[in-house]
Protein backbone atom coordinates (compact mmCIF):
# COMPACT_ATOMS: atom_id res chain seq x y z
CA UNK A 1 0.00 0.00 0.00
CA UNK A 2 1.60 3.29 -1.10
CA UNK A 3 -0.37 5.72 0.99
CA UNK A 4 0.31 6.26 4.66
CA UNK A 5 -2.67 6.58 6.95
CA UNK A 6 -2.82 7.28 10.66
CA UNK A 7 -4.51 6.04 13.78
CA UNK A 8 -6.13 9.19 15.10
CA UNK A 9 -7.61 7.73 18.30
CA UNK A 10 -7.94 4.37 19.97
CA UNK A 11 -9.78 3.02 22.96
CA UNK A 12 -10.38 -0.14 24.93
CA UNK A 13 -12.75 -1.65 27.45
CA UNK A 14 -11.38 -4.58 29.46
CA UNK A 15 -11.25 -5.75 33.09
CA UNK A 16 -13.59 -3.01 34.27
CA UNK A 17 -11.46 -0.29 32.74
CA UNK A 18 -12.28 2.00 29.84
CA UNK A 19 -9.29 3.78 28.29
CA UNK A 20 -8.92 6.36 25.56
CA UNK A 21 -5.57 6.77 23.78
CA UNK A 22 -3.86 4.76 26.49
CA UNK A 23 -5.26 6.85 29.35
CA UNK A 24 -7.67 5.29 31.79
CA UNK A 25 -10.97 7.16 31.67
CA UNK A 26 -13.39 5.08 33.68
CA UNK A 27 -12.77 2.33 36.20
CA UNK A 28 -15.57 0.15 37.43
CA UNK A 29 -15.28 -1.87 40.60
CA UNK A 30 -17.92 -4.26 39.30
CA UNK A 31 -16.91 -7.67 37.98
CA UNK A 32 -20.05 -8.75 36.11
CA UNK A 33 -20.18 -7.47 32.53
CA UNK A 34 -23.69 -5.97 32.59
CA UNK A 35 -22.84 -3.90 35.66
CA UNK A 36 -19.48 -2.78 34.26
CA UNK A 37 -21.15 -1.65 31.04
CA UNK A 38 -23.90 0.12 32.96
CA UNK A 39 -21.24 1.98 34.97
CA UNK A 40 -19.46 3.11 31.82
CA UNK A 41 -22.77 4.17 30.26
CA UNK A 42 -23.49 6.31 33.33
CA UNK A 43 -19.99 7.78 33.47
CA UNK A 44 -20.18 8.75 29.80
CA UNK A 45 -23.38 10.58 30.74
CA UNK A 46 -25.37 9.12 27.84
CA UNK A 47 -29.07 9.44 27.32
CA UNK A 48 -29.87 6.73 24.79
CA UNK A 49 -32.68 4.43 25.87
CA UNK A 50 -32.07 1.92 23.05
CA UNK A 51 -28.86 1.00 24.89
CA UNK A 52 -30.81 -0.98 27.46
CA UNK A 53 -32.41 -3.20 24.82
CA UNK A 54 -29.05 -4.24 23.37
CA UNK A 55 -27.26 -7.51 24.00
CA UNK A 56 -23.87 -7.49 25.73
CA UNK A 57 -21.78 -7.48 22.54
CA UNK A 58 -23.72 -4.52 21.16
CA UNK A 59 -23.51 -2.62 24.46
CA UNK A 60 -19.77 -3.17 24.62
CA UNK A 61 -19.24 -2.14 20.98
CA UNK A 62 -21.60 0.80 21.30
CA UNK A 63 -19.72 2.18 24.32
CA UNK A 64 -16.31 1.79 22.71
CA UNK A 65 -17.56 3.58 19.58
CA UNK A 66 -19.09 6.25 21.77
CA UNK A 67 -15.71 6.94 23.37
CA UNK A 68 -14.09 7.41 19.97
CA UNK A 69 -16.83 9.21 18.05
CA UNK A 70 -18.41 11.11 20.98
CA UNK A 71 -21.95 12.46 20.80
CA UNK A 72 -23.41 12.12 17.30
CA UNK A 73 -23.23 15.23 15.21
CA UNK A 74 -23.93 16.03 11.58
CA UNK A 75 -20.18 16.31 11.16
CA UNK A 76 -19.73 12.60 11.91
CA UNK A 77 -22.21 11.68 9.19
CA UNK A 78 -20.26 13.78 6.71
CA UNK A 79 -16.95 12.23 7.66
CA UNK A 80 -18.02 9.00 5.92
CA UNK A 81 -16.63 6.52 8.43
CA UNK A 82 -16.66 2.82 7.48
CA UNK A 83 -16.88 0.20 10.24
CA UNK A 84 -14.81 -3.00 10.29
CA UNK A 85 -15.04 -5.09 13.43
CA UNK A 86 -13.94 -8.60 14.35
CA UNK A 87 -13.95 -11.18 17.14
CA UNK A 88 -13.68 -14.92 17.71
CA UNK A 89 -16.84 -15.65 19.69
CA UNK A 90 -19.27 -14.32 17.09
CA UNK A 91 -22.61 -13.78 18.88
CA UNK A 92 -22.24 -16.95 20.98
CA UNK A 93 -23.13 -15.16 24.21
CA UNK A 94 -26.57 -14.27 22.85
CA UNK A 95 -26.89 -17.50 20.85
CA UNK A 96 -26.65 -19.39 24.15
CA UNK A 97 -29.38 -17.26 25.69
CA UNK A 98 -31.57 -17.96 22.69
CA UNK A 99 -30.74 -21.66 22.79
CA UNK A 100 -31.80 -21.85 26.46
CA UNK A 101 -35.19 -20.45 25.57
CA UNK A 102 -35.83 -23.22 23.03
CA UNK A 103 -34.02 -26.16 24.66
CA UNK A 104 -37.04 -27.51 26.48
CA UNK A 105 -39.75 -28.65 24.07
CA UNK A 106 -42.39 -28.39 26.80
CA UNK A 107 -41.42 -24.93 27.97
CA UNK A 108 -40.54 -23.17 24.78
CA UNK A 109 -40.43 -19.42 24.48
CA UNK A 110 -37.92 -17.75 22.16
CA UNK A 111 -37.87 -13.99 22.50
CA UNK A 112 -37.69 -11.89 19.31
CA UNK A 113 -35.82 -9.26 21.35
CA UNK A 114 -33.05 -11.79 22.03
CA UNK A 115 -33.19 -13.48 18.64
CA UNK A 116 -32.54 -10.25 16.76
CA UNK A 117 -29.07 -10.13 18.35
CA UNK A 118 -28.03 -13.65 17.33
CA UNK A 119 -25.67 -12.27 14.70
CA UNK A 120 -22.35 -10.59 15.50
CA UNK A 121 -22.70 -7.73 13.03
CA UNK A 122 -25.83 -6.39 14.74
CA UNK A 123 -23.44 -4.40 16.95
CA UNK A 124 -22.24 -2.59 13.83
CA UNK A 125 -25.87 -1.79 13.08
CA UNK A 126 -26.28 -0.25 16.53
CA UNK A 127 -23.22 1.95 15.97
CA UNK A 128 -24.47 2.96 12.51
CA UNK A 129 -27.94 3.79 13.83
CA UNK A 130 -26.47 5.90 16.65
CA UNK A 131 -24.03 7.87 14.50
CA UNK A 132 -26.00 7.85 11.22
CA UNK A 133 -23.29 5.98 9.35
CA UNK A 134 -24.53 4.89 5.91
CA UNK A 135 -21.07 3.66 5.07
CA UNK A 136 -19.38 0.37 4.20
CA UNK A 137 -19.21 -2.16 7.02
CA UNK A 138 -18.01 -5.68 7.68
CA UNK A 139 -17.71 -8.04 10.60
CA UNK A 140 -15.05 -10.77 10.56
CA UNK A 141 -14.66 -13.82 12.75
CA UNK A 142 -11.05 -14.87 13.29
CA UNK A 143 -9.34 -17.38 15.58
CA UNK A 144 -7.40 -14.52 17.14
CA UNK A 145 -6.96 -10.80 16.83
CA UNK A 146 -5.59 -10.06 13.35
CA UNK A 147 -4.01 -6.63 12.98
CA UNK A 148 -2.87 -7.60 9.51
CA UNK A 149 -6.36 -8.27 8.18
CA UNK A 150 -7.79 -5.11 9.72
CA UNK A 151 -4.87 -3.13 8.28
CA UNK A 152 -5.41 -4.46 4.76
CA UNK A 153 -9.14 -3.95 4.85
CA UNK A 154 -9.03 -0.40 6.22
CA UNK A 155 -6.22 0.66 3.88
CA UNK A 156 -8.11 -0.71 0.90
CA UNK A 157 -11.35 1.06 1.90
CA UNK A 158 -9.60 4.43 2.09
CA UNK A 159 -7.32 4.05 -0.92
CA UNK A 160 -10.18 2.89 -3.14
CA UNK A 161 -12.18 5.89 -1.89
CA UNK A 162 -14.95 3.78 -0.39
CA UNK A 163 -14.68 5.84 2.78
CA UNK A 164 -12.68 8.65 4.36
CA UNK A 165 -12.08 7.03 7.73
CA UNK A 166 -12.46 3.55 9.16
CA UNK A 167 -13.57 2.56 12.64
CA UNK A 168 -11.75 -0.73 13.22
CA UNK A 169 -11.56 -3.11 16.10
CA UNK A 170 -12.01 -6.28 18.03
CA UNK A 171 -15.10 -6.73 20.21
CA UNK A 172 -15.52 -10.04 21.96
CA UNK A 173 -17.90 -11.41 24.57
CA UNK A 174 -17.74 -15.05 25.68
CA UNK A 175 -19.29 -16.05 29.00
CA UNK A 176 -17.60 -13.85 31.63
CA UNK A 177 -14.80 -12.74 29.33
CA UNK A 178 -15.06 -9.55 27.37
CA UNK A 179 -12.79 -7.09 25.60
CA UNK A 180 -13.18 -4.22 23.21
CA UNK A 181 -10.42 -2.52 21.27
CA UNK A 182 -11.28 0.10 18.68
CA UNK A 183 -9.35 2.64 16.69
CA UNK A 184 -10.01 5.19 13.99
CA UNK A 185 -7.97 5.15 10.80
CA UNK A 186 -7.69 8.51 9.11
CA UNK A 187 -5.75 10.21 6.32
CA UNK A 188 -4.95 13.14 8.59
CA UNK A 189 -1.46 13.07 9.96
CA UNK A 190 -1.09 12.19 13.64
CA UNK A 191 1.42 10.56 15.98
CA UNK A 192 0.62 6.90 15.28
CA UNK A 193 1.12 5.56 11.79
CA UNK A 194 -1.40 3.03 10.54
CA UNK A 195 0.71 -0.11 10.27
CA UNK A 196 0.11 -3.73 11.24
CA UNK A 197 2.88 -3.40 13.79
CA UNK A 198 1.31 -0.40 15.48
CA UNK A 199 -2.17 -1.98 15.47
CA UNK A 200 -0.77 -5.11 17.12
CA UNK A 201 1.23 -3.02 19.61
CA UNK A 202 -1.86 -1.03 20.69
CA UNK A 203 -3.85 -4.24 21.02
CA UNK A 204 -1.12 -5.89 23.12
CA UNK A 205 -1.15 -2.89 25.45
CA UNK A 206 -4.69 -3.74 26.56
Amino acid sequence: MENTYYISNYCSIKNGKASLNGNSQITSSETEIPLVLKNIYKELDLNYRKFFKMDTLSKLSFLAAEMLLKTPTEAIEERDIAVVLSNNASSLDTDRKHQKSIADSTNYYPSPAVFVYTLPNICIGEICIRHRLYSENSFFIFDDFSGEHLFDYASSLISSKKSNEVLCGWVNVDEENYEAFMYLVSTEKSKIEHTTKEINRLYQEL
Partner: protein
Amino acid sequence: MSKSVAITGMGIISAIGNNVEENYLSLINGKKGISKISKIDTIHKDCIMVGEIAYTNADLEKSLDLPADHNYSRSSLLGAFAAKQAVENAGITNMAKYRSGLISASTVGGMDMTEKYFYDYIENPTNRKYIDGHHLGDGTQKIAKLLGIEESFVSTISTACSSAANAIIIGSRLIKSGKLDRVVVGGTDCLSKFTINGFKTLMILSDTYNTPFDDARKGLNLGEAAAYLVLESDEIVKAENRKVLAYVKGYGNTNDAFHQTASSENGDGATAAMEKTLRVANLAPKDVDYINAHGTATPNNDLSEGRAIIRVFGEEVPPFSSTKAYTGHTLAAAGGVEAIYAVLALQNNVIFPNLNFKNKMKEFSITPETSLIKKELNTVLSNSLGFGGNCTSVLFSKKP
Protein backbone atom coordinates in the same frame (compact mmCIF):
# COMPACT_ATOMS: atom_id res chain seq x y z
CA MET B 1 -11.18 -7.03 -16.98
CA SER B 2 -14.60 -7.14 -18.60
CA LYS B 3 -16.40 -3.93 -19.46
CA SER B 4 -19.84 -5.43 -19.34
CA VAL B 5 -21.57 -8.23 -17.47
CA ALA B 6 -23.72 -10.38 -19.72
CA ILE B 7 -26.55 -12.60 -18.54
CA THR B 8 -26.38 -15.74 -20.66
CA GLY B 9 -28.52 -18.24 -18.77
CA MET B 10 -31.43 -18.34 -16.35
CA GLY B 11 -33.09 -21.01 -14.23
CA ILE B 12 -36.03 -20.72 -11.88
CA ILE B 13 -38.55 -22.68 -9.87
CA SER B 14 -41.29 -20.77 -8.09
CA ALA B 15 -44.94 -20.98 -7.15
CA ILE B 16 -45.83 -19.91 -10.69
CA GLY B 17 -43.70 -22.35 -12.64
CA ASN B 18 -40.92 -24.90 -12.74
CA ASN B 19 -38.89 -23.13 -15.42
CA VAL B 20 -38.43 -19.75 -17.07
CA GLU B 21 -41.08 -20.36 -19.74
CA GLU B 22 -43.76 -21.40 -17.22
CA ASN B 23 -43.00 -18.39 -15.05
CA TYR B 24 -43.34 -16.09 -18.06
CA LEU B 25 -46.67 -17.59 -19.08
CA SER B 26 -48.05 -17.16 -15.57
CA LEU B 27 -46.82 -13.56 -15.48
CA ILE B 28 -48.47 -12.53 -18.74
CA ASN B 29 -51.66 -14.43 -17.96
CA GLY B 30 -52.04 -12.94 -14.49
CA LYS B 31 -51.89 -16.38 -12.92
CA LYS B 32 -50.83 -16.17 -9.30
CA GLY B 33 -49.35 -19.00 -7.26
CA ILE B 34 -50.75 -18.06 -3.86
CA SER B 35 -52.74 -20.63 -1.92
CA LYS B 36 -53.29 -22.18 1.50
CA ILE B 37 -50.22 -24.04 2.72
CA SER B 38 -50.22 -27.80 2.04
CA LYS B 39 -46.67 -29.07 2.62
CA ILE B 40 -46.01 -27.79 6.13
CA ASP B 41 -48.16 -28.70 9.09
CA THR B 42 -48.32 -25.36 10.87
CA ILE B 43 -50.84 -24.10 13.44
CA HIS B 44 -51.07 -20.95 11.32
CA LYS B 45 -52.31 -22.86 8.24
CA ASP B 46 -55.79 -21.37 8.38
CA CYS B 47 -54.69 -17.77 8.76
CA ILE B 48 -51.91 -17.47 6.16
CA MET B 49 -51.52 -17.80 2.41
CA VAL B 50 -48.25 -18.78 0.76
CA GLY B 51 -46.54 -19.17 -2.59
CA GLU B 52 -45.83 -22.89 -2.54
CA ILE B 53 -44.01 -24.86 -5.24
CA ALA B 54 -45.97 -27.82 -6.55
CA TYR B 55 -43.01 -30.23 -6.65
CA THR B 56 -42.54 -32.33 -3.52
CA ASN B 57 -39.07 -33.12 -2.18
CA ALA B 58 -39.44 -36.59 -3.72
CA ASP B 59 -40.12 -35.06 -7.15
CA LEU B 60 -37.00 -32.91 -6.85
CA GLU B 61 -34.85 -35.78 -5.58
CA LYS B 62 -35.92 -37.83 -8.56
CA SER B 63 -35.24 -35.02 -11.00
CA LEU B 64 -31.75 -34.52 -9.52
CA ASP B 65 -31.16 -38.27 -9.37
CA LEU B 66 -29.96 -38.17 -5.74
CA PRO B 67 -28.94 -41.27 -3.78
CA ALA B 68 -31.32 -42.40 -1.01
CA ASP B 69 -29.00 -41.35 1.80
CA HIS B 70 -28.60 -37.72 0.66
CA ASN B 71 -29.01 -34.90 3.18
CA TYR B 72 -30.40 -32.14 0.95
CA SER B 73 -32.80 -29.71 2.60
CA ARG B 74 -35.64 -28.41 0.47
CA SER B 75 -33.74 -25.14 -0.10
CA SER B 76 -30.81 -27.14 -1.48
CA LEU B 77 -33.09 -29.26 -3.67
CA LEU B 78 -34.74 -26.17 -5.13
CA GLY B 79 -31.40 -24.38 -5.51
CA ALA B 80 -29.74 -27.30 -7.26
CA PHE B 81 -32.76 -27.68 -9.57
CA ALA B 82 -32.77 -24.01 -10.64
CA ALA B 83 -28.98 -23.58 -10.85
CA LYS B 84 -28.71 -26.64 -13.11
CA GLN B 85 -31.39 -25.21 -15.34
CA ALA B 86 -29.52 -21.89 -15.59
CA VAL B 87 -26.28 -23.57 -16.62
CA GLU B 88 -28.07 -25.72 -19.20
CA ASN B 89 -29.89 -22.66 -20.49
CA ALA B 90 -26.55 -20.88 -21.03
CA GLY B 91 -25.39 -23.85 -23.05
CA ILE B 92 -22.38 -24.50 -20.83
CA THR B 93 -20.90 -27.92 -21.48
CA ASN B 94 -17.45 -27.47 -20.01
CA MET B 95 -17.52 -25.52 -16.75
CA ALA B 96 -13.76 -25.83 -16.25
CA LYS B 97 -12.94 -24.12 -19.53
CA TYR B 98 -13.26 -20.70 -17.86
CA ARG B 99 -12.67 -19.45 -14.33
CA SER B 100 -16.14 -19.98 -12.91
CA GLY B 101 -17.63 -19.21 -9.51
CA LEU B 102 -20.86 -19.51 -7.59
CA ILE B 103 -22.48 -16.93 -5.29
CA SER B 104 -25.59 -18.39 -3.75
CA ALA B 105 -27.98 -16.68 -1.36
CA SER B 106 -30.19 -18.21 1.30
CA THR B 107 -31.77 -17.28 4.61
CA VAL B 108 -33.43 -20.58 5.46
CA GLY B 109 -30.74 -23.12 4.53
CA GLY B 110 -31.49 -26.49 6.10
CA MET B 111 -33.88 -25.09 8.69
CA ASP B 112 -36.81 -27.09 7.28
CA MET B 113 -35.08 -30.36 8.23
CA THR B 114 -33.71 -29.02 11.51
CA GLU B 115 -37.15 -28.00 12.74
CA LYS B 116 -38.54 -31.36 11.72
CA TYR B 117 -35.91 -33.46 13.49
CA PHE B 118 -34.43 -31.15 16.16
CA TYR B 119 -35.90 -32.86 19.23
CA ASP B 120 -35.48 -36.24 17.60
CA TYR B 121 -31.71 -35.98 17.00
CA ILE B 122 -30.76 -36.84 20.58
CA GLU B 123 -32.66 -40.13 20.69
CA ASN B 124 -32.64 -41.15 17.08
CA PRO B 125 -29.51 -41.25 14.87
CA THR B 126 -31.37 -41.86 11.56
CA ASN B 127 -31.85 -38.23 10.64
CA ARG B 128 -28.68 -36.79 12.11
CA LYS B 129 -27.30 -36.47 8.59
CA TYR B 130 -29.37 -33.30 8.29
CA ILE B 131 -27.31 -31.55 10.99
CA ASP B 132 -24.50 -31.12 8.45
CA GLY B 133 -27.01 -29.73 6.00
CA HIS B 134 -28.28 -27.05 8.35
CA HIS B 135 -25.95 -24.17 7.64
CA LEU B 136 -26.40 -21.95 4.62
CA GLY B 137 -23.01 -22.75 3.13
CA ASP B 138 -23.87 -26.44 2.83
CA GLY B 139 -26.48 -25.79 0.15
CA THR B 140 -24.03 -23.60 -1.76
CA GLN B 141 -21.38 -26.32 -1.67
CA LYS B 142 -23.86 -28.90 -2.90
CA ILE B 143 -24.82 -26.71 -5.85
CA ALA B 144 -21.16 -25.93 -6.60
CA LYS B 145 -20.33 -29.61 -6.65
CA LEU B 146 -23.27 -30.40 -8.89
CA LEU B 147 -22.20 -27.70 -11.35
CA GLY B 148 -18.55 -28.71 -11.17
CA ILE B 149 -17.28 -25.47 -9.64
CA GLU B 150 -16.50 -26.56 -6.09
CA GLU B 151 -12.79 -25.91 -6.59
CA SER B 152 -13.35 -22.30 -7.58
CA PHE B 153 -14.66 -19.20 -5.81
CA VAL B 154 -17.80 -20.23 -3.97
CA SER B 155 -19.57 -18.02 -1.44
CA THR B 156 -22.88 -17.67 0.37
CA ILE B 157 -24.74 -14.43 0.94
CA SER B 158 -27.35 -13.94 3.63
CA THR B 159 -28.59 -10.39 3.87
CA ALA B 160 -32.28 -11.10 4.36
CA CYS B 161 -34.53 -10.09 1.47
CA SER B 162 -31.77 -8.47 -0.58
CA SER B 163 -29.57 -11.61 -0.54
CA ALA B 164 -29.84 -12.76 -4.16
CA ALA B 165 -29.60 -9.19 -5.46
CA ASN B 166 -26.37 -8.86 -3.51
CA ALA B 167 -25.18 -12.15 -5.01
CA ILE B 168 -25.74 -10.56 -8.44
CA ILE B 169 -23.69 -7.52 -7.38
CA ILE B 170 -20.78 -9.60 -6.14
CA GLY B 171 -20.83 -11.79 -9.23
CA SER B 172 -20.87 -8.73 -11.47
CA ARG B 173 -17.98 -7.14 -9.61
CA LEU B 174 -15.94 -10.35 -9.83
CA ILE B 175 -16.38 -10.32 -13.60
CA LYS B 176 -15.76 -6.58 -14.00
CA SER B 177 -12.57 -6.78 -11.98
CA GLY B 178 -11.38 -9.75 -14.00
CA LYS B 179 -11.21 -12.12 -11.02
CA LEU B 180 -13.60 -14.56 -12.71
CA ASP B 181 -14.94 -15.03 -16.22
CA ARG B 182 -18.21 -16.64 -15.30
CA VAL B 183 -20.28 -16.54 -12.12
CA VAL B 184 -23.51 -18.37 -11.38
CA VAL B 185 -25.50 -16.09 -9.07
CA GLY B 186 -28.86 -16.34 -7.36
CA GLY B 187 -30.64 -17.60 -4.32
CA THR B 188 -32.87 -20.25 -2.84
CA ASP B 189 -35.29 -20.40 0.07
CA CYS B 190 -37.93 -22.98 0.91
CA LEU B 191 -40.85 -22.37 3.23
CA SER B 192 -40.27 -23.32 6.84
CA LYS B 193 -41.95 -22.92 10.21
CA PHE B 194 -38.94 -20.79 11.14
CA THR B 195 -39.82 -18.09 8.61
CA ILE B 196 -43.58 -18.46 8.98
CA ASN B 197 -43.39 -18.06 12.77
CA GLY B 198 -40.80 -15.29 12.55
CA PHE B 199 -42.86 -13.18 10.17
CA LYS B 200 -46.01 -14.05 12.12
CA THR B 201 -44.36 -12.65 15.26
CA LEU B 202 -43.57 -9.45 13.38
CA MET B 203 -47.29 -9.33 12.50
CA ILE B 204 -46.67 -8.73 8.81
CA LEU B 205 -48.29 -11.83 7.28
CA SER B 206 -51.49 -11.28 5.35
CA ASP B 207 -54.34 -13.74 5.86
CA THR B 208 -55.38 -13.27 2.25
CA TYR B 209 -53.80 -12.53 -1.18
CA ASN B 210 -51.09 -9.89 -0.77
CA THR B 211 -51.84 -6.50 -2.33
CA PRO B 212 -48.65 -4.53 -3.05
CA PHE B 213 -48.91 -0.72 -2.93
CA ASP B 214 -52.60 -0.88 -1.96
CA ASP B 215 -53.80 1.43 0.79
CA ALA B 216 -55.58 -1.49 2.47
CA ARG B 217 -52.58 -3.85 2.26
CA LYS B 218 -52.43 -6.31 5.13
CA GLY B 219 -48.93 -7.72 4.82
CA LEU B 220 -47.00 -10.25 2.80
CA ASN B 221 -47.43 -13.87 1.71
CA LEU B 222 -44.28 -15.90 2.13
CA GLY B 223 -43.18 -17.84 -0.91
CA GLU B 224 -40.56 -20.40 -1.82
CA ALA B 225 -38.35 -20.23 -4.87
CA ALA B 226 -34.90 -20.66 -6.29
CA ALA B 227 -33.56 -18.59 -9.16
CA TYR B 228 -30.09 -18.42 -10.70
CA LEU B 229 -28.50 -16.48 -13.51
CA VAL B 230 -25.28 -17.15 -15.39
CA LEU B 231 -23.13 -14.03 -15.68
CA GLU B 232 -20.32 -14.06 -18.24
CA SER B 233 -17.55 -11.74 -19.38
CA ASP B 234 -17.22 -10.06 -22.78
CA GLU B 235 -14.47 -12.52 -23.54
CA ILE B 236 -16.66 -15.62 -23.13
CA VAL B 237 -19.55 -14.02 -24.98
CA LYS B 238 -17.23 -13.40 -27.91
CA ALA B 239 -15.34 -16.68 -27.82
CA GLU B 240 -18.41 -18.86 -27.41
CA ASN B 241 -20.66 -16.73 -29.60
CA ARG B 242 -23.20 -16.53 -26.80
CA LYS B 243 -26.72 -15.25 -27.07
CA VAL B 244 -26.87 -12.48 -24.45
CA LEU B 245 -30.24 -12.28 -22.69
CA ALA B 246 -29.52 -8.91 -21.04
CA TYR B 247 -26.78 -7.07 -19.18
CA VAL B 248 -26.25 -6.14 -15.56
CA LYS B 249 -25.67 -2.45 -16.08
CA GLY B 250 -25.64 -0.95 -12.59
CA TYR B 251 -26.08 -1.80 -8.94
CA GLY B 252 -26.02 -0.30 -5.49
CA ASN B 253 -26.19 -1.67 -1.97
CA THR B 254 -26.64 0.57 1.05
CA ASN B 255 -27.61 0.43 4.70
CA ASP B 256 -30.08 2.93 6.07
CA ALA B 257 -28.84 2.93 9.68
CA PHE B 258 -32.34 3.00 11.10
CA HIS B 259 -33.54 -0.18 12.83
CA GLN B 260 -32.61 -3.87 13.21
CA THR B 261 -35.65 -5.00 11.24
CA ALA B 262 -37.69 -2.08 9.83
CA SER B 263 -36.80 0.20 6.92
CA SER B 264 -36.72 3.93 7.52
CA GLU B 265 -40.10 5.56 6.82
CA ASN B 266 -38.72 7.88 4.20
CA GLY B 267 -36.79 5.16 2.43
CA ASP B 268 -33.34 6.64 2.97
CA GLY B 269 -31.59 3.35 2.18
CA ALA B 270 -33.71 2.53 -0.86
CA THR B 271 -33.20 6.06 -2.21
CA ALA B 272 -29.45 5.79 -1.81
CA ALA B 273 -29.41 2.31 -3.41
CA MET B 274 -31.32 3.46 -6.50
CA GLU B 275 -29.19 6.60 -6.84
CA LYS B 276 -26.00 4.60 -6.54
CA THR B 277 -27.25 2.13 -9.16
CA LEU B 278 -27.93 4.93 -11.63
CA ARG B 279 -24.45 6.36 -10.98
CA VAL B 280 -22.78 2.99 -11.63
CA ALA B 281 -24.88 2.54 -14.79
CA ASN B 282 -24.11 6.13 -15.78
CA LEU B 283 -27.78 6.74 -16.48
CA ALA B 284 -30.28 9.42 -15.46
CA PRO B 285 -33.60 8.65 -13.74
CA LYS B 286 -35.42 9.38 -17.01
CA ASP B 287 -33.55 6.48 -18.63
CA VAL B 288 -35.34 3.89 -16.47
CA ASP B 289 -38.22 2.33 -18.40
CA TYR B 290 -39.76 0.12 -15.73
CA ILE B 291 -39.23 -0.54 -12.03
CA ASN B 292 -39.83 -4.04 -10.73
CA ALA B 293 -40.40 -2.91 -7.15
CA HIS B 294 -39.68 -4.88 -4.01
CA GLY B 295 -43.34 -4.22 -3.05
CA THR B 296 -43.86 -6.86 -0.39
CA ALA B 297 -47.28 -5.47 0.57
CA THR B 298 -46.25 -4.80 4.16
CA PRO B 299 -47.32 -1.37 5.43
CA ASN B 300 -43.70 -0.43 6.14
CA ASN B 301 -42.06 -1.56 2.88
CA ASP B 302 -44.50 -0.14 0.38
CA LEU B 303 -44.64 3.25 2.11
CA SER B 304 -40.88 3.45 2.46
CA GLU B 305 -40.18 2.20 -1.07
CA GLY B 306 -42.87 4.38 -2.65
CA ARG B 307 -41.42 7.46 -1.00
CA ALA B 308 -37.93 6.46 -2.11
CA ILE B 309 -39.11 6.06 -5.72
CA ILE B 310 -40.62 9.54 -5.60
CA ARG B 311 -37.41 10.93 -4.11
CA VAL B 312 -35.34 9.46 -6.94
CA PHE B 313 -37.69 9.98 -9.89
CA GLY B 314 -39.58 13.13 -8.80
CA GLU B 315 -42.52 14.04 -11.02
CA GLU B 316 -41.68 11.46 -13.64
CA VAL B 317 -41.94 8.10 -11.96
CA PRO B 318 -41.60 5.35 -14.58
CA PRO B 319 -44.17 2.55 -14.72
CA PHE B 320 -43.68 0.26 -11.74
CA SER B 321 -45.17 -2.94 -10.35
CA SER B 322 -44.45 -5.61 -7.80
CA THR B 323 -44.66 -9.26 -8.79
CA LYS B 324 -44.94 -10.45 -5.17
CA ALA B 325 -48.69 -10.97 -5.67
CA TYR B 326 -47.76 -13.81 -8.05
CA THR B 327 -44.99 -15.55 -6.13
CA GLY B 328 -45.23 -14.35 -2.56
CA HIS B 329 -42.13 -12.96 -0.94
CA THR B 330 -39.42 -15.52 -1.64
CA LEU B 331 -36.91 -13.87 0.76
CA ALA B 332 -33.30 -14.67 -0.20
CA ALA B 333 -34.41 -15.85 -3.66
CA ALA B 334 -36.51 -12.74 -4.41
CA GLY B 335 -33.66 -10.75 -5.96
CA GLY B 336 -32.93 -13.67 -8.31
CA VAL B 337 -36.57 -14.35 -9.17
CA GLU B 338 -37.15 -10.70 -9.96
CA ALA B 339 -33.88 -10.37 -11.88
CA ILE B 340 -35.23 -13.09 -14.19
CA TYR B 341 -38.58 -11.28 -14.42
CA ALA B 342 -36.70 -8.08 -15.30
CA VAL B 343 -34.86 -9.89 -18.10
CA LEU B 344 -38.15 -11.40 -19.32
CA ALA B 345 -39.67 -7.90 -19.34
CA LEU B 346 -36.75 -6.66 -21.47
CA GLN B 347 -36.82 -9.63 -23.84
CA ASN B 348 -40.55 -9.41 -24.45
CA ASN B 349 -41.06 -5.66 -24.02
CA VAL B 350 -43.77 -6.10 -21.43
CA ILE B 351 -44.52 -4.68 -18.02
CA PHE B 352 -46.08 -7.22 -15.69
CA PRO B 353 -49.19 -6.18 -13.79
CA ASN B 354 -49.22 -5.52 -10.05
CA LEU B 355 -52.05 -7.93 -9.22
CA ASN B 356 -54.65 -7.31 -6.51
CA PHE B 357 -54.23 -3.52 -6.49
CA LYS B 358 -57.43 -1.55 -5.81
CA ASN B 359 -56.89 1.50 -3.61
CA LYS B 360 -54.34 4.28 -4.09
CA MET B 361 -52.21 4.79 -1.02
CA LYS B 362 -53.12 7.94 0.86
CA GLU B 363 -49.51 9.01 1.47
CA PHE B 364 -48.70 9.65 -2.20
CA SER B 365 -50.23 9.82 -5.66
CA ILE B 366 -48.22 7.17 -7.51
CA THR B 367 -49.93 3.87 -8.37
CA PRO B 368 -48.54 0.66 -9.86
CA GLU B 369 -49.41 -0.71 -13.30
CA THR B 370 -52.36 -3.07 -12.97
CA SER B 371 -52.55 -4.56 -16.43
CA LEU B 372 -50.08 -6.12 -18.83
CA ILE B 373 -48.47 -3.33 -20.83
CA LYS B 374 -46.64 -3.76 -24.10
CA LYS B 375 -43.89 -1.18 -24.32
CA GLU B 376 -40.40 -0.95 -25.78
CA LEU B 377 -38.12 -1.43 -22.77
CA ASN B 378 -34.39 -0.79 -22.71
CA THR B 379 -33.79 -0.75 -18.97
CA VAL B 380 -35.44 -2.27 -15.92
CA LEU B 381 -34.60 -1.35 -12.35
CA SER B 382 -35.15 -4.09 -9.77
CA ASN B 383 -35.34 -3.30 -6.05
CA SER B 384 -34.62 -5.73 -3.22
CA LEU B 385 -34.94 -4.16 0.18
CA GLY B 386 -33.88 -6.25 3.14
CA PHE B 387 -34.70 -6.20 6.80
CA GLY B 388 -32.44 -3.98 8.79
CA GLY B 389 -32.26 -1.58 5.87
CA ASN B 390 -29.97 -3.66 3.66
CA CYS B 391 -31.17 -2.06 0.43
CA THR B 392 -30.16 -3.15 -3.05
CA SER B 393 -31.02 -2.03 -6.54
CA VAL B 394 -29.87 -3.64 -9.76
CA LEU B 395 -30.33 -2.22 -13.23
CA PHE B 396 -30.73 -4.57 -16.19
CA SER B 397 -30.44 -3.39 -19.78
CA LYS B 398 -30.69 -4.61 -23.33
CA LYS B 399 -27.48 -2.91 -24.35
CA PRO B 400 -24.11 -3.44 -22.67
